[in-house]
């Protein structure tokens, strides 16, 4: 038996041939998504913001030369038409730094989210479904993960590991951050595994892999998807924070490095001269978080029929 998340909840899998049914469901799902997004302009704004950042991440570095131009006579220049967010300590356009720096931030966020969710979900599902020794072992492992002080560990790791690629950074943040999702997924699994459709699947002699992957997982997909998006924001904060503290490799267009230099080199918290240099990456982080939160709001309604207003 296959239970597919069905936002319309009206079409039975048995009512039509499998291929047609799936196509119809998919079409209806996206129609539902569109309706949910249109219902509140803020949700559309969220999609636009995240799409904009995605474009920045993919195409941003292509818009500028590899070596960003500098104006030696315009250090910490105020905002102007040529430089909407002014210039940095060596006369480089701050907007160009934010745009070209988006790729590292987003790739790290994405890698972290994928690893967090994949590990957390897998461990939570296996522990919750099998219970017994597996549960004990995996949950002790989860407890250890939750007990690890992430930031101090990263500070120590940064002395031996330079994190030159966003994937390395994402891997570490992901490996450190799956504990919470594993706990939540296990709880949901413990609840779902007692339901009738799981009993029926067991009665039919379906293999465990099928029950976990095709019966349990789809029911938790919305929750997992939302956690994945929230994990992106967590990863952005974590890596920008580490760069701000100056423990990660220097990249002049990294948002955390920009914040660090704006505060400690430009005195942005003391004088307004370097304030645009400080505000630009802050606004970028704020917008990205806002976009993700607005999309999560939409997802909540898409996957939860009870929240629908019509």
């Amino acid at each position: 038996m296959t239970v597919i998340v069905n936002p319309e909840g009206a079409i039975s899998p048995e009512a039509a041939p499998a291929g047609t049914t799936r196509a119809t469901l998919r079409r209806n799902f996206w129609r539902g998504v569109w309706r949910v997004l249109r219902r509140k302009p803020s949700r559309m704004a969220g999609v636009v913001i995240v799409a904009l950042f995605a474009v920045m991440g993919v195409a941003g570095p292509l818009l500028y030369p590899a070596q960003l131009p500098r104006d030696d006579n315009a250090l910490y220049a105020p905002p102007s038409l040529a430089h909407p967010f002014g210039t940095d300590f060596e006369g480089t356009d701050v907007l160009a730094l934010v745009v070209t720096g988006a790729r590292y931030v987003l790739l790290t966020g994405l890698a972290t989210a994928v690893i967090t969710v994949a590990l957390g979900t897998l461990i939570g599902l296996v522990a919750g479904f099998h219970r017994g020794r597996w549960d004990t072992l995996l949950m002790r492992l989860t407890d250890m993960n939750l007990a690890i002080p992430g930031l101090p560990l990263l500070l120590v790791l940064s002395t031996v590991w330079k994190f030159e690629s966003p994937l390395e950074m994402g891997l570490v943040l992901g490996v450190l951050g799956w504990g919470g999702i594993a706990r939540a997924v296990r709880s949901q699994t413990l609840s779902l595994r007692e339901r009738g459709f799981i009993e029926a699947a067991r009665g039919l002699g379906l293999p465990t892999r099928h029950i976990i992957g095709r019966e349990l997982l789809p029911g938790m997909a919305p929750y997992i998807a939302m956690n994945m998006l929230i994990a992106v924001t967590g990863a952005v904060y974590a890596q920008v924070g580490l760069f701000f503290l100056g423990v990660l490799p220097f990249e002049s267009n990294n948002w955390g490095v920009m914040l660090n230099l704006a505060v400690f080199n430009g005195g942005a918290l003391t004088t307004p001269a370097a304030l645009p240099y400080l505000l630009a990456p802050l606004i970028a982080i704020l917008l990205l978080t806002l976009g993700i939160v607005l999309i999560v709001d939409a997802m909540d309604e898409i996957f939860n029929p009870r929240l629908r207003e019509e």
Partner: protein
Amino acid sequence: MKRLAAIVALASIVTATACGTTGTTDTAQQGGGVYTTIDGSKQINASAPINPFNPVGSVFSGYNGMALAWPKNDPTDPNQFYPAIARSWSMSPDRSEVVIHLQPDARWSDGTPVTSEDVRVSIGLAYTQGGTAYALDPKAAGAAADIQVVDSKTIRVTQGANRSSTFLANLLSTVVVPAHVFGKLLPADFWQTLKVAQHGQGEAAEKAKNQITGLAEKVIAFNPGHDVSAGPFVLERVNPGAALLKRNPYFYARQNIAPAKVKILNYTGNEQIWNYLIAGRLDNAPFTSVPTAVMNRIRGAQGSKVVKGYSPVAVSLAFNQSHKPYDNVHVRRAMAYLIDRAQVTRIASPEGGTPAATTSGIHAKAARAWLGDAFDTLEQYRVNAAKADAELKAAGMTKRGGRWTLPDGSPWKVRIHVPASFSDWVAAGKSISSQLSDHGIDASVVTAADYTLYLGELADGKYDLGFWLIGLGPSPYNIFQRLFGQANGWQMFGGRLRHVAPGTEGNWMGGPEKVDAGAAGTVDPGELTSRLNYASHDEQQRIVGVLAKVANEQLPVVQLWDYVNTQFVNTSRYTAFPPDDDESLRLSSGVWMQLGMIRKAEKGQA
């Protein structure tokens, strides 16, 4: 961020002394009030003991911490000092003996007189911590051999056979503590043990050395409970935010001290000091890295003034010559021709530095004093892309697709290492990498998490290029130690100089042991540097000329900027601060007060 502390700590190795005395003024001034400042050398630790041997101890130099004398900021002579606990001193012509006369009226804050025994105990405690003048190895250059109390106010110290021109300077820098408080830290047989350690042989000498160095931790951890100070102030209380000191009624020059109390504020970063200065809370703040915009705001605070003077410190980009292609002098010269030092300084240290006129290993002011007109004959390495190209071609480099490649055709990647906590160095590194990239060199900046890690990795030879402080005068020996000392393979062991292989025992600069110095022939720069320790002044001048030329031609480093000592004062509450370029400028406000400076401002005066 942490640059302030690092600069102060490294620059503090410059010490010096001289025969001569400078009397204090007799002007009585009882102005009162609370003088507010910060201590640039350390942050306040409320739980630290009141102990000058403890690096974070609540003893503040010039206030409740006293040395025998205070070093003047002379560009070339390390033997210029202001009197402190020592009223005067004299050194025999062959530098074998120094006689120190203490202030006749000096008393501790509990009323006990300061005597020669206090100095003797202080020297004994200094032996437990090690140091140039108090090395246990009698063959070490400038080590004291014998300490003799002549009378209650006179002490004689004899130098060992390996005499150093900085012996007097190191001796006068000795911190003096009360024997009746700290004396119990020294075992009854300490001086006998010291003699065995210095002059004994074999196992007995080793055992004695271990006994003395074994006292180090005990001395550092010692907490007297309350402050007994011979300085102008005595600690009243300390909390995590500030230390409060009150006037010492027994201080020998108490008539010079205007404030009734001194408050030393704590800080966690330069930004906090900027905010204190903008708010007008500080009467004085020592050298602090300040961006131009912040400097303008500080200048705008009521009564705020900036005093500038000579600082015997310069910063450089150093090469690891044991790594290719930096073993090739043409590569180093090419990079020198490509770095716009004026632009780097403007970006990194606009208020606290002046672009290096050239690479000589010496701060420009000291270089002019040592070299005279010869300073102008040194190659200046002005920005010149054509010369850089010629040098790179001479090194066998080729340019393909707009990028320079190594002689074997592989990509040339320049990695400039800096500690992340030094934001001015980070900005300078970025500026240099941008300038090199403009010229087709793949350059980038790599940060180390903190300064300790940075120095460790640098010493381990992990970096190709890194930022390095140089020119730490006034002693010419200290200046060239930074270029041709331990970091470049020359080590003093058992009184003998030896050169170790690059990549071993801290030799990360990896320069050659002997170099062609033109008219001076083939020279050993480390050996010449070592000779600066004991040579006569004329000989020192000749050696400095040779070493400056070697530094200029061989470029173990590219000198980037010379630091300017930028002090902040506020005349709203107190006046009579030292003027620009004053010889006392690098000393604390407490020393200024001892010297008769700093008076209470009259109402309306600012």
